[in-house]
């Protein structure tokens, strides 16, 4: 019997005890960077549900919870009105990436910053983007908190949102790290221009693959920034969990949508544009819920970090 359907304790959990097992087992327990990619899924080897089940659960959380459903629509409308007040003129379909997880959401922030403030790149643009990134962190944290609470208890409440707020700083940190991935991708793309697009997609996928779980880890385990990042990346590398496939499934269509040259400039989106924007944003919220669900399914099987043997002094 697995613990797949075992009910989890809601919200914050005490940090796990020290890594005695890891000390005992040594490096063998630590998965490699791409272990999950090359390890076939073996029945019963992990509690991680299949991709389809995960996504369906994420959708159920989003669509079946009025707070998330209506909240998403309201956020999109308020976001659009705020953008208009700052002088943004569209294209409105770009708003489809508004609630996307980082780093796709970060691209949206960058574009919005560029359009509103007229700064397109360099340190100025990155600094100007900071307020947008902070707001994104808060929103992502709240959505995450609500999703975890709904998965746990079937209900959403202010306390769930409040718990989510606590991980907003880590979401911001993750966004900054992922931005670093982007910058590296830019340089790599310049080195091999013919493959620049693949380099970019690959880099974004890697960023999602390694870092997407980190905020959920902190939300659930209450651990610090570094430990959350480390645990999240170890969770992604658990063999047979399909984490890379999940990352690809998110990044490829999300990047494609964010880059689609659709719609012209205008501030009165048509009803069809709103349908598109709302639908895609609900999907983005579902992705956040999907990641929360996937973490909650495997949180007990994440290998402890390998403790390196102290180097001998000469």
């Amino acid at each position, binding site marked *: 019997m697995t613990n797949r359907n075992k009910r989890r304790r809601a919200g914050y959990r005490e940090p796990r005890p020290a890594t005695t097992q890891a000390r005992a087992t040594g490096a063998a327990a630590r998965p490699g960077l791409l272990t999950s990619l090359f390890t076939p899924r073996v029945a019963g080897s992990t509690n991680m549900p299949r991709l389809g089940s995960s996504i369906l659960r994420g959708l159920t959380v989003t*669509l079946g919870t009025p707070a998330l459903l209506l909240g998403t629509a309201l956020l999109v409308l308020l976001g659009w009105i705020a953008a208009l007040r700052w002088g943004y003129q569209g294209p409105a379909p770009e708003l489809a990436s508004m609630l996307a997880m980082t780093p796709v959401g970060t691209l949206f922030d960058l574009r919005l910053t560029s359009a509103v403030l007229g700064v397109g*790149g360099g340190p100025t643009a990155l600094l100007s983007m900071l307020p947008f990134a902070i707001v994104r962190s808060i929103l992502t944290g709240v959505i995450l908190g609500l999703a975890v609470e709904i998965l746990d208890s079937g209900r959403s409440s202010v306390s769930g949102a409040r718990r989510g707020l606590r991980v907003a700083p880590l979401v911001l940190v993750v966004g900054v790290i992922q931005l670093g991935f982007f910058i590296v991708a830019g340089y790599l793309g310049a080195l091999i221009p013919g493959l620049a697009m693949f380099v970019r997609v690959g880099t974004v996928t890697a960023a999602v693959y390694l870092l997407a779980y980190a905020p959920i880890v902190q939300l659930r385990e209450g651990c610090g920034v570094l430990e959350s990042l480390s645990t999240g990346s170890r969770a992604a590398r658990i063999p047979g969990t399909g984490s890379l496939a999940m990352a690809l499934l998110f990044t490829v269509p999300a990047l494609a949508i964010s880059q689609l040259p659709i719609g012209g*400039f205008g501030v*009165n989106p048509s009803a069809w544009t709103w349908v598109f924007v709302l639908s895609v944003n609900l999907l983005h919220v579902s992705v956040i819920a999907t990641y929360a669900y996937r973490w909650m399914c495997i949180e007990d099987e994440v290998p402890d970090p390998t403790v390196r043997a102290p180097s001998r002094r000469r």
Partner: protein
Amino acid sequence: MASLFVGLMVTPALGAASPSADAWPQFQADGAHSGSTSAGPQPPYRQIWRFDPGLSGRFGVSAPVVAGDLAVTVAPRALYGVDLATGTQEWAIERDFGPAVPPALVDDGAHTFVVFTEGFGPNPPSEVFAAPTEGPSSGSAPSPTASGSASGGSADPGSDASFDSRVAAVDLATQQPVWDAPVQLDAISRTGVTVEGTTAYVGDDDGVVTAIDAASGEVRWSYDAPGPVATSIAATAAGVVLATQPEPNTTAVVIALDPTDGSERWRFAPAIPSISTVSAIEGDTVYLGSTDQTGSRMLALALADGSRRWETAVNSQVSPLTSPVVTGEAIVAVDAYTQVYGLDPATGERIWDHALNTLTVRGVPVLVGHSLLIATAAGELAAIDTDSHDLTARAAGTGPGGYLGPIAVTSQLVIAVKGGHRPGLVAFAHDPLASLTSIPSPTVLSIGTMLGNFALAALPLLLLLGLSGRWLRAHLGPAFAEDLLDPEAGGGPA
């Protein structure tokens, strides 16, 4: 090469032309590229003629210039004089196979002559090996019969497949050369000709800017820029401004020269590699657009020292072929997605904008009274009222499809380059039977429309998705079943 054999293809005029004082002697009206006129037909428009010189391939005709009752345009192998009243070919003058770039008209009091460039140099495009297909528009005039170019170059295509680059001048009335000899250039010229006062300016792919005495054809001075000069040069009595194109190891710069001796006054070199539009000069300020990897913007630079007075971001890239329109009241610029911006000349602040949301790559805006005309890649001539900022007219050219390009304006006509299949010129006149529209820009907020559309979309969508979510929840059940064996959670074995 130096022979002055003139290949004239003079044909009888087919339509009576009514003399007028119309003049649009060069690209964007004058050397400063003001691009505006107070006298011109007001919208709405209808196409009244189309001039088709029978071109094929990828090269079309240049921006037209107008003197009296004649429009002159440059095609790869010939100059054409087109009767403004009927759109039929008055004459054609063969030229060496070269870029179809704007000529300029010079009036010395006694004569009006056209100054133009020719020659693709030693490595012409592959079209040179194809039989020339240029000819008169169907039924309007006989085909050219003479060989040789107006400047006496090697006009026999394929003979040596080399066409020296030159600047030449031909009298409009007699179609005879005006200068003793054409001015030889070292590289292909794509800038077209800009005339200011008595001086004609051309640039070439080697970056050499040559100032020529328009009356005699003598070179006054030349200047060697750090990159190719391929777009129109702006010139006033106070300064000459040009933009270079980027090369693999050279960034593009904007340079101002002293018109008297060609000495460099200043060089504006953006920190990030960029592409600039054609400049326009008004008073002591140079206006231009610039696109780099960080975005696009309009810039105002001091003509005296190149210092940046202001810059204003625009939404889309700007085409290097376009130029802002300059009036005392506003700078009007158009980006490549045909968003028109009215900017305060002093501060660059955006006063108004109108987004047409269609591509414009070769279109250059012109201002006719209070109507801004812009030709689109879709082949439409759009008019935007600079007072109301509304779209007041939209006219599509008839005939084979293709983009509309640079415009010349007379008191009765708007003449635009027609590109695409069977390129040529099209002329629009005021259409008294059509009515003006008043379509606001989609960038003007209509709170009722915006919220109404949102409600129209959100209510059924959320209802549908909400019901789907409830159904899914009912069928899938809770994400995690009641605790089975987790004493930490307070549960016990089920």
